[in-house]
């Protein structure tokens, strides 16, 4: 017998509005992040991305609308217990070691993971050798990785990462990408707020682009990327059939061959997420 079970989204936001005085930071945002989904949040500076993340965390109160984390109203204790958060601008006490930072957050969250959990998390973010190093002696990138480990204390259902790779070098970014994929495999939902479009495109299942407090585009990276034609390489050189799509490629090749042309290669062109982003937020973002 088929059992139907309602799945509670990790994050559900509906008609969310936030005003700071006369400035409207969010203007009716609605989105859902499913269980185990990697969701990318894109948008220019001041678009309202961090406000949305902070509302989900309970650090900012919405003016109207609703936000729920794992079914609990954002800002309530059950909602906060279900999430882990890495702020865009954060700092840990400089005198604490990496291990002490994690131990502090274990105590506050009621996690009983003990040294084993701390060791695993430090290993996951590549800081196992720096467990006893004071935060004040860590590079910004190391602190950011420690911040990610901190957010994962207590095995949250939803991770809210606000620019988690802004201070990381390419190797650090790769570590975080692998980490995000590992989280997905564990069923942890992630809301990734990032400026790095290529990174979002690589790891996220779905993406929402926010501009001026509104969601202006949403979908999978593939959905957001538009067909850009079919490029065929023949003896006479490359030719682009701009209006054609992937399904048109066999017919184009057939027509060219029957017309006596020799075909050496075919490439279906699509716009990148960056193109979709720039189209969504306008020329001002260039």
């Amino acid at each position: 017998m088929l059992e139907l079970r309602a799945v509670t989204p990790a994050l559900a936001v509906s008609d969310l509005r936030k005003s700071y005085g006369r400035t409207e930071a969010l203007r009716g945002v609605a989105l859902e992040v499913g269980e185990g989904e990697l969701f990318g949040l894109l948008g220019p500076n001041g678009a309202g991305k961090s406000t949305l993340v902070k509302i989900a965390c309970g650090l900012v109160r919405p003016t109207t609308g609703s936000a729920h984390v794992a079914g609990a109203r954002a800002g309530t204790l059950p909602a906060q217990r279900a999430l882990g958060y890495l702020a865009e601008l954060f700092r840990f006490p400089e005198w604490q070691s990496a291990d002490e930072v994690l131990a502090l957050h274990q105590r506050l969250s009621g996690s009983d993971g003990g040294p084993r959990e701390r060791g695993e998390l430090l290993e996951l973010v590549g800081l196992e050798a720096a467990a006893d190093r004071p935060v004040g002696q860590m590079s910004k990138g190391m602190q950011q990785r420690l911040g990610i480990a901190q957010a994962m204390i207590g095995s949250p259902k939803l991770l809210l990462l606000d620019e988690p790779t802004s201070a990381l070098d390419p190797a650090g970014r790769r570590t975080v990408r692998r980490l995000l994929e590992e989280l997905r495999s564990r069923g942890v939902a992630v809301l990734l707020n990032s400026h790095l479009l290529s990174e979002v495109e690589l790891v996220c299942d779905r993406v929402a682009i926010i501009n001026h407090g509104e969601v202006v585009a949403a979908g999978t990276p593939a959905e957001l990327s538009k067909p850009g034609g079919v490029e065929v390489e023949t003896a006479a050189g490359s030719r682009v059939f701009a209006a054609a799509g992937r399904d048109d490629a066999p017919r184009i090749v057939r027509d060219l061959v029957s017309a006596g042309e020799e075909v050496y290669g075919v490439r279906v062109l699509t716009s990148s997420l960056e193109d979709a982003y720039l189209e969504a937020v306008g020329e001002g973002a260039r």
Partner: protein
Amino acid sequence: MNAARTIAGLGLQEAVRRRVFLIVAVLTVCYLALYGLGTWQAFEEVESESSSFRGVEPDVVTGAYLLGLNMFGTLFLGTILAVFLTLGTVRGDAERGLLQPLLVRPVPRRTLLAARFASASLVCGAYVIVVFLISMTITWALGGWWPDRIVEPALGLAASVAILCALSLAGSVFLASTANGIAVFMVFGAGLVAGLLGQIGEALSSDTLSDVATTASWILPFEALYQSALGAITADTVGFTRLAIDLGPFGGAEDFGPLLWPWAIAYLAIVGAIALRAFAARDL
């Protein structure tokens, strides 16, 4: 409760790691050494001076003046400690990005404020009590004079710094660290001026000045508690000695009666409620 203990411990641990307590301890030893030197010299001078007024006990007047001065110094040091332990608790820590990771853990905002108040007022209260008791012992050892009351002034000083801790914590919800520190010291200065106005009013028999001073002391009860504490050290002293003490700079303390302590507790509750309400509404 666990979160409150952890947050309270974190604040104290930070003070230890940043060597706040070490510096405070070293400077307090210097302060007490200076007080001891002054006390020894003052009693030497008084003993060698034979032309004292009849009916005035010079050692009592000297001891009361010195300990009164010391109590002001102790309160001032306690206030500095209170302000520096609390001035950036909310806005300061939020601007530095220290607060948000803690609150999301989750630590309820009321728990954070209550824990920081408990730890700061406990440390500052213990500090002023210890410094007062040591100063009192120094005064007795070098001059042979004990205050008339011991517990009451010690608790009065501790309650004064607890109120200043609460004001500083409440201020940290509204103001950035530097602005809050300046504001609390100015409030402390206003209380001090209120006390001095009261003494001037007493000396000039000016009811207006006395009323202004009394009203200000009720509005800023740390000053009223300090004055009561000051009055308590010579509570049983009478006659010309009493008169001589009252004429001195630390002698005109006013007794604010039995309502002072209930008002101080209510004041803490009011300041706490305002701070909690504002903190709950603050976007971080």
